[in-house]
């Protein structure tokens, strides 16, 4: 299966679009007990590229994303970031993760800390910034996501959209090179989806390498350089959004798109 997907007509064109491969996944398998969730994934994400991963529920797209910063142990295969194999026991995962920001469906803000503390925790703890610098940087990020006035608020007092924007700011505080979005708008009330997408859109245009697992097909089409369609633990088809949405080559893809579009 992986053979067909890795040699698509898009590869050469996209590689010329943006420089070096940033993330390389090969022959990735992941099982939870008897449940074989990922069945051999090969995927390359280039620097500055925005990749949207779509597919039906249970297709393994979130699991794939969580393997990229190794929140999930991989069963077999390799995940490399800047040439460093994360499955190698000798690699310092904490150091690699500092370069990979992640935004979760359920925000996962730390409820016992203020918004500001949420954002400054990692830079200060990891010695990346002095407390004063971290604070200044946090305010700057909060301004960027439009929440400067909420710096001293506790997460519980924020709306879903505000929480997710704080979560994005928290991830950005470590100046990551890659951002992973795991269904970042799925838990939001419809009227709040827009404000979060607005922030992500801004990030995409800034040249950040991004992988988005999303159900927002319109958004995926709009912001991504490439769309990956997954089903049953494999990548069925991938390509530029206009191609994949406009002219899908695989029956599974057509079937899925016909249901969601």
């Amino acid at each position: 299966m992986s053979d067909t997907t890795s040699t698509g007509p898009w590869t050469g064109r996209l590689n010329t679009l943006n420089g070096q491969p940033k993330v390389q996944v090969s022959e990735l398998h992941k099982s939870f007990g008897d449940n074989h969730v990922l069945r051999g994934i090969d995927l390359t994400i280039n620097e500055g590229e925005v990749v949207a991963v779509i597919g039906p529920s249970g297709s393994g797209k979130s699991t794939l994303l969580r393997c990229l910063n190794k929140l999930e142990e991989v069963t077999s295969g390799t995940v490399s970031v800047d040439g460093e194999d994360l499955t190698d026991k000798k690699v310092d995962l904490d150091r690699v993760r500092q370069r990979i920001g992640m935004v979760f469906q359920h925000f996962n803000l730390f409820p016992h800390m203020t918004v500001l503390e949420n954002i400054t925790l990692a830079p200060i703890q990891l010695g990346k910034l002095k407390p004063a610098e971290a604070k200044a940087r946090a305010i700057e990020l909060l301004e960027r996501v439009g929440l400067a006035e909420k710096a001293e608020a506790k997460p519980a007092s924020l709306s879903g959209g505000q929480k997710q924007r704080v979560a994005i700011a928290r991830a950005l505080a470590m100046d990551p090179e890659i951002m992973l979005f795991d269904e970042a708008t799925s838990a939001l009330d419809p009227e709040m989806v827009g404000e979060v997408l607005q922030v992500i859109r801004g990030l995409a245009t800034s040249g950040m390498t991004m992988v988005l697992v999303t159900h927002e097909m319109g958004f995926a089409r709009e912001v991504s350089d490439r769309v990956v369609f997954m089903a049953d633990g494999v990548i069925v088809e991938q390509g530029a959004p206009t191609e994949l949405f406009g002219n899908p080559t695989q029956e599974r893809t057509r079937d899925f798109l016909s249901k969601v579009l």
Partner: protein
Amino acid sequence: MNNGTTRARRGRRRGLAALGSAIALALLGGGAAAVPALAAEPASDVAGQTFVIGTDTTFAPFEMTDTSGELVGIDMDLIRAVADDQGFTVDIKPQGFDAAVQALQVDQVDAVIAGMSITDERKKTFDFSSAYFQSGVQMAVSEDSDVQSLEDLQGQKVAVKTGTEGASYAQSIANEYGFELLTLTETTDTYEAVKSGQAEALVDDYPVLGYSIQQGNELRTIGDRQEGAPYGIAVNKGQNAELLSAINTGLGNIAENGTYDEILERYLGDNAPKASDIVAPSTFATDAPQTGEHFVIGTDSTYAPFEFTGEDGEVVGIDMDLLRGIAANQGFTVEIKRLGFDAAVQALQAGQVDAVIAGMTITDEREKVFDFTEPYFDTGVQLGVLEDSDIASYDDLEGQTVAVKTGTQGQTFAESVKDEYGFDVLVSTDTTDMVDAVKAGQAVGYFEDYPVLAYGIAQGSGFKLVGDKEVGGQYGAAVNKGENAEFIELFNAGLANAKASGFYDEVVNTYLGTGEDEAAEASPNIFTVISTYWPQLLDGLKWTVLATLVAVVAAFILGIAFGFARISRLAPLRWIATAYVYVFRGTPILIQAFFIYFALPAMTGIKFDSFTAGALTLSLNAGAYMTEIVRSGIQAVDPGQAEASRSLGLGYWTTMRKVVLPQAFKIMIPSFVNQGIITLKDTSLLSVISLAELTFVSKQIIASTYLSAQVLTVVAIIYFTLITLLTLLANRLERKFNA
């Protein structure tokens, strides 16, 4: 005080004695003729009824469970035989000794048979059957112990079961032999204590010891057997007289027809005493067939309350009533000659009288010349002061003068303590002089035999007693050495019957009054219990709080350590922590306490005192629960929290410290508080290894006062108050933490 030369002049106290005798006769209602107990008709009232009998769970050979699970033993076979004999049925409830006694008080059982000694203290609360066994306590050590005699116990520990004769005995000689007591709540624990080396020796009733050695317990008895109070079957005072009467009749019958002998032989083999020697006739019969024996008895002219002239000119008093009762009981006749003390003694030596009974102290000196009966009265010296005196204890005697009569025990005692308390002794040659010296202010008080003092006070002498009764001599009746052995035999047998039937107590109480007893019987309320026993309760509370504090702190540390181990990625750590939790959650805390206190020393040689063992048990037990609280608290934090933290590049421990634990602790607080309260309550279980915490203290108080309802109420209130205060404190902390 019954020195011959001084006793001769007692006659001069006649004025006081005459007044006394008038009142005494009024009390007696019929003078010397009033002999309290008479033979009762055999009761058939209870035939066909069922009685609930409380007993101890294990007190071999009196009660124990045989291999088929049935409750057997001397007590059990005895009560069943008595029930058969009297046609009633018994429903036996093995509850443990203390619980059985408490159950009796609240009428949950009708009677208790549990190797229960008949004591004066208990007689205030219970009516007892005739004695059915004469026990006695003895010490025992491990077979291989170096201890050969009581002297070798210097600096050692002796295990006793709380509230038993053995405990009183050990207490009474602890100072003399320089050993410490280790007080435990179960007999089996005292044996465990010796086995494990927690104690060098134990004290137990000799039949129990004998039986246990016969069963292969590797023990050896040391020292002499101390004759203890006889065993009786108890019912509540003034209740169930029909049952008691039936029991006494049945007891007499089975002692007579050999049934009881069979029972005794079954359990004690060759050492079995003869039933007829220990079971007294069920009542103090005063209509025994005449033996034809006749004795001439010499006595003092006046020595109230033992002998003095009644209103109708006849001699009455404790000696006289007792002698007449025993004569009627044993079927002999007496002729009483009032000769004065010295004259009576001389008459005896000259063969003019057969015996003398005259408040005569048994001394080594006299035993060279006379044979004595068993002692029939324990006397002792006490201090008497005027009613309006400020003297409240010996300490108040500093710089004062105290009167004594020469050659008396009072003088001996006064001389022995005068330096310690700093008083002068004024020696009088006569009781009257001594009393007058006090009334005239030359002395603040005088030392006299307590029955004499007590009787005088009861008759309005204007004195009061100060301090405790000092140990004194024993009175016996005397015959010439080698002569009149029949009198001794008959007197002793009659005395035993008189004591067993209660006749003896009635006689003594008639003259010495029961003012003290009445005070004790006036049902004390909760406030009297608090005011009387507050220092003891407070001391118990101290240990409860201390054990709780130590355990809670230690358990917290253990809980954090093992809690992390439980969720560790390292399998061996997980196994160790899981095993710890399973062991300490999977066994009762009582077993853990026993194990740490008894088994561990036996296996490893490491000994703990009861506080260390208790605190260790609680810590380990609570630590297991804390481990689970910590583990589940950590696991209750949304895993997304750790993921978010790890995704930022923060390490495992930073994530724990900064993100997971602050949230986990918030979740754990109510469980911590709950566990703290449970631990506090669990301290009460440590009374089994003799940690003197609140429950232990309350058991001790109940054992000596029988005020279970009052004491338990007070103790429950103390626990409740303590726990409520802790809960309020915890709530405040929790609010602060959540703010």
